[in-house]
């Protein structure tokens, strides 16, 4: 085992040399022999050309740079600019002041002491004054899963009348318009953060908040009567649905979605065959950004489904669903943020 580790270290050194174009022929031969045996290295690093190409990609980033910074007079402007160290100390101080103020504020909800209030405003203005040092807002892309709302849109009016019909829009055209959700969901419930890329940790490029709205959606079947009705319905016909609940479909918008601030609602249909395999994904309402639609369809085709059943027999069916992408700028909680 120890020997193997040693070999791998040697291979890494050689691979680095190949990437930098410093390898000898003996190195290259050794690397070729190694990746012929070691599937892990082959898939993670690739062949010699792949190594050189990846390294060249970084070099080409330099070629396409257009940022021409002017430092100006280092000696004169230095007095005005704070050094990063000082700025960080300032950021620390401000944030701790804010935290302390908030804590103070919350621990004494009944009688708000004027001292705490002034402290809050003082730190708020300090934060404001710190503006140029701290970039404006923290942006993240929040994905609202509209599963209940739009998936059940085409249901007959008779069935929707059984549920709470005071809020539910009956016609599909109206439903398409109702995609506005409480922008900030109550942070203590129904909010789970799902890592977009799976382990290992260093691969996690971006995280995203998926808010499941099934608990707050108006169609939620809550009374005992309708629950019974629901189970009766299910015994006859069950619709196709994703296995693993509503987070089973987990769209992963590409990085560009964050920088573009892409927002929109994508409604889609997945054709499910009788074995529960998705066969086709159709966008019924595009979000306006193709990559969002593609992310949704990609996720939908990746998920596994339970097929539609009629009297216990599995038949091909359609699963309808929708996602709303929204750029949120609230930085209130400790949710993971996308990394740009």
């Amino acid at each position, binding site marked *: 085992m120890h020997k193997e580790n040693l070999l791998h270290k040697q291979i890494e050194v050689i691979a680095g040399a190949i990437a930098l174009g410093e390898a000898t022929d003996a190195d290259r031969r050794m690397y070729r022999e190694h990746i012929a045996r070691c599937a892990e290295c082959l898939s993670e690093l690739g062949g010699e050309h792949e190594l050189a190409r*990846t390294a060249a990609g970084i070099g080409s980033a330099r070629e396409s740079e257009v940022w021409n*910074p002017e430092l100006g007079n*280092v000696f004169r402007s230095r007095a005005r600019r704070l050094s990063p160290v000082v700025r960080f100390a300032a950021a620390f101080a401000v944030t701790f002041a804010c935290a302390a103020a908030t804590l103070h504020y919350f621990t004494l909800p009944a009688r708000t002491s004027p001292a705490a209030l002034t402290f809050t405003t003082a730190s708020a203005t300090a934060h404001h004054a710190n503006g140029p040092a701290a970039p404006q807002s923290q942006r993240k892309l929040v994905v609202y899963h509209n599963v209940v709302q739009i998936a059940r849109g085409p249901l007959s009016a008779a069935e929707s009348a059984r549920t709470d019909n005071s809020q539910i829009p009956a016609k599909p055209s109206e439903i398409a318009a109702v995609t506005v959700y409480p922008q900030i969901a109550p942070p203590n419930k129904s909010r789970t953060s799902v890592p977009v890329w799976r382990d290992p940790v260093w691969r*996690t490029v971006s995280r995203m908040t998926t808010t499941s709205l099934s608990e707050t959606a108006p169609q939620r079947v809550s009374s005992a009567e309708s629950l019974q009705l629901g189970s009766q319905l299910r015994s006859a016909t069950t619709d196709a649905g994703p296995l693993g609940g509503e987070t089973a479909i987990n769209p992963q918008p590409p990085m560009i979605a964050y920088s573009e601030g892409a927002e929109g609602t994508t409604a889609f249909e997945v054709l499910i065959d009788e074995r529960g395999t998705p066969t086709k994904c159709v966008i019924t309402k595009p979000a306006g950004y193709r990559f969002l639609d593609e992310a949704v369809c990609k996720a939908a085709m990746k998920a596994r489904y339970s097929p539609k059943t009629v009297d216990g027999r599995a038949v091909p069916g359609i699963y309808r669903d929708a996602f709303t992408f929204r750029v949120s700028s609230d930085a209130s909680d400790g949710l993971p943020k996308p990394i740009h």
Partner: protein
Amino acid sequence: MEQVYLVTGTSAAQSRVEALVREHQTKLARYVRRMVGDADVALDIAQDVFFSAYRTLQREPERPLTAGWLYKTATNTAISYLRRKKILRFMSLDREHDVRSLRIDERSAASIDLQAAMRRLPAEQAAAIMLTSYAGYSSQEAAAILGTSADAIRQRVCRALRTLRAVMMENA
């Protein structure tokens, strides 16, 4: 680089640093920006580097300052900045730099992906790959700048490429 300086004293140091600034400011600031991922911080660090060059020249007027010295100082400052930032992030006080603060003008997806991938790298690996692939130093020169061996640089480059490649393939 000219290494013979006839004039000595404070004003000489100042003019030498000004020459250094003129020659290296763009490349150095771009390099630091790639390391730290923030244009404003990169400018600050670059200024600090040139200012410490000035103080060094005031102390020892005979000392020849090369580009390697500048990159070494810049790398060390950037690494310590990244470490501090990591602590801040751990305490979830980190302000998210958005793409605007990065001022990546070439707004291609590949470039943004590269910057995103850079953020996943440990500071040492980022320095190794930036000094070699980006700034164009050989692994021996990078080793001298970072105070380690050429093999260690190569190994870090390899590990960094592993991560970069995985991230870029995920995004593709």
